[in-house]
């Protein structure tokens, strides 16, 4: 067992756990941040996606030791108070979900995509988000949501 100092959504936490414990387990079991979801446990579905220093990672296969002293952002830390992040708003506007279980991870992957590539083509979006599964099949709506978010960032 090792003690880790973590920065999650701008707040400092201290967690004692094994070095190999996945980030997802620490977020959910220790910090009770339930936005990131378990889906497959092997980095295949993206439901557990969170940002580490702005990059999307699969938190179910990332050991906690990898993110110590780095900035972790989860879906809970994305908006500002009542204000939704433009990507969250775009998902809402396009009803880019059905059951919603993939949505937090999907939104985090979209935020990372737009940071890297503020004006993605449809092909870019498909390729970059291919690690995130929506079993309900709302892919076309998610693509539209990303395009709207990209435009609103441009306007703003």
């Amino acid at each position, binding site marked *: 067992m090792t003690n880790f100092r973590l920065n999650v959504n701008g707040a400092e936490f201290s967690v004692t756990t094994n070095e190999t414990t996945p980030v997802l*387990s620490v977020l*959910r*079991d220790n910090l*009770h941040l*339930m*936005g*990131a*979801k*378990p*889906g*497959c*446990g*092997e980095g*295949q*579905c993206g*439901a557990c996606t969170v940002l580490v220093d702005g990059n999307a990672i699969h938190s179910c296969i990332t050991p906690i030791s990898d993110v110590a002293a780095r900035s972790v952002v*989860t*879906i*809970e830390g994305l*908006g500002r108070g009542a204000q*939704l992040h433009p990507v*969250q*708003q775009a*998902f*809402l506007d396009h*009803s880019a*979900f*059905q*059951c*919603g*279980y*993939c*949505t*937090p991870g999907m*939104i985090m992957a979209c935020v990372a995509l737009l940071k890297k590539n503020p004006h993605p083509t449809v092909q870019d*979006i*498909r*390729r970059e*988000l*291919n690690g*995130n*599964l*929506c*079993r*309900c*099949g*709302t*892919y*076309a*709506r*998610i*693509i539209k949501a990303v395009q709207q978010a990209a435009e609103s960032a441009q306007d703003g």
Partner: protein
Amino acid sequence: MAENLRTFIERGLVTGASFTRREALKRLGSGTLFLFSLRNAKAGGQKQPFLTSRLHIGEDGIVTVLTGKVECGQGVRTTLTQVAAEELSLEPGRVRLIMGDTALVPDDGGTWGSLTTPETVPVIRKACSAMRELLCRCAASEWHADLKTLTVTNGQISGTGGRIYAYRDLTRSPLLANAVSADARSIDPNSWRVCGTSLRAINGAAIVRGALPYSSDLVFDRALHGRVLHPPNHRCTLGSFDASEAEHLPEVRVVHDGNFLGVTAPTPDQAAAAVAVIRAEWTNGELGDPRNLFADLKAKAKPPELKEAGRYPALLEAGSLAVGMEAAEHKLEATYHITYIGHVPLEARTAIAQWQGDQVTVHCGTQAPFSVRGEIAKALNIPAENVRVIVSDTGSGYGAKHNSECELEAVRLARGTQEPVRLAWSRHEEFTQAYCRPAAVMEVRSGVQGDGKILAWEFHNYNGGAASLAAPYQIPNRYAAYHASESPLRQGSYRSLAAVGNTFARETHVDELAAMLKLDPLEIRLRNIDNARLKAVLTCAAERFGWGKSRSGNGVGYGLACNVEKGGHLALFTELEVDGSNVHLKRMVAAFDVGAIINPDILSNQVEGAIIQGIGGALFEQLEFDKTRILNGRLVAYRVPRFTDVPDIEVILVDHRDIPSAGAGESPITTTAPSIGSALFAATGKRIRELPMLPAFAGSGS
């Protein structure tokens, strides 16, 4: 008889309720619960066949609708809210739904078979319109006003002198001293204000914030974590076992009950580690040889079971096959196969069970809370009233989550330890311990005229099921039968279940007839259809798609399929490109008619999603297994549709306000595979008669 039955409403009295019921009622907050019953009006309303607690009116004026249906992503939390708001003449924001809490809500049946819209919508409509009528009646009585002059707007009636009569005033109405009969006409669909609009998902804001609590997100203080030692396959029984090493691990407890063997521990990791050191022998667990799957299914098939006419009779017969085949100018015979696939709901199931005395509460994400309650009660030999099942909005099911599996396991672990226990299935367990979509063999023999008119049609489904057994074509001589069989893998429900395989076989066969007769695949269908709604969706989608404007060939193919299933009329056109053994879906156009549309955006979302889920089963999804176990029960080994698999999809919705709404979450999956197969044949001349198609297509050589 039915017209003599009237709706009676009365204030709910809570007496003699069980502990779970009293606990449950706290969820409603302060206000009044209203009970509904249907009674024979002529008999003076003496007989009380069935009392249903359906509506609660809070002191804050919020109306709570209680239903046994649950939200799995298909949008019924929103559409049922719309229906209630419409009939109550109330803003949707003043309506709340409590779904799937067995101690509180009526048993509306499982959330399956696309039945929420055709069955539960009318029930809620009726209760809410009766409530609106009661509001008018009570206001008229109190104010000595003429009933006909009163209308409800925004949930209240405005009288002279600024008087207001609202739903919460009903609580004190002397009219409600006894049960009151109140039947009212539902709002005319042509006057809908809330229904027929694309009201956004009620839970949408919570979803995009990651704040919607699924059952796997629920946190219970002091809850232990469970893990079950599962057998290699469903046919195994537990022989001898040695759990002594697990029992000696700190804070680990082993629970053994017949064939069930599981552990609890303070953390999921500890529980997994404990299960890993249990040594168990499983006996009698042969699945059979997967290479002989289809031959075995046919060999073990039984004659069609003639039950009373239900939704899907196993035998459909008309005219004379012999006469039809004799008269036909051309004949065609072919066999089609579909294999086992998984539902793969992204949320693997989780259950949290807690006993208090002889009563147990289970939080879970099932599609069928009352079935799960019944199964738990039966397994433990306790009264159903002692089991409370509470369902959270679910990370979807697609027909996967009907039975008590994880739930019963959690209940056993909690009983064995007398502590609350949380049991979360892994993805691997979700693949290997849940039932899967049946494999099936379909045999078709047809006789046809040179102009494409089908005269004879013989259809057999082995092991799949009877949904979509009825062809939507006018065929004078026909015989269609479903033969149940013995399945090596545990099989169960699925989105549209057998309709996927039956529609694939039938539509592919019709496409083959068109090719044989050198007819246009759209034309041969239109020549055999006299269903005006099906014709309309076909022609409408064909026009939008631009059917016939470009010729297939050179690796580009255009195809189509149509179906009528669960009241939905659907046509789907596909454009694809083939590059070697790769199939690239470019564009799909669907037209769909389910009668009156309650929420166009939710409906469109369901159609898009069902088509996309169909792509997986059509092209690449399959469970692989050997004689003892499923081999590819992981997402790294089992391929489901991703962003790069999905074409542009356009959905045209045909709204018929005069036709009662059919359910729509399932049927649009049925045309995906045959539409792709039709386009694949058009592009390459290769006819693939099995699902998934890609392995067979790649193996067919170029």
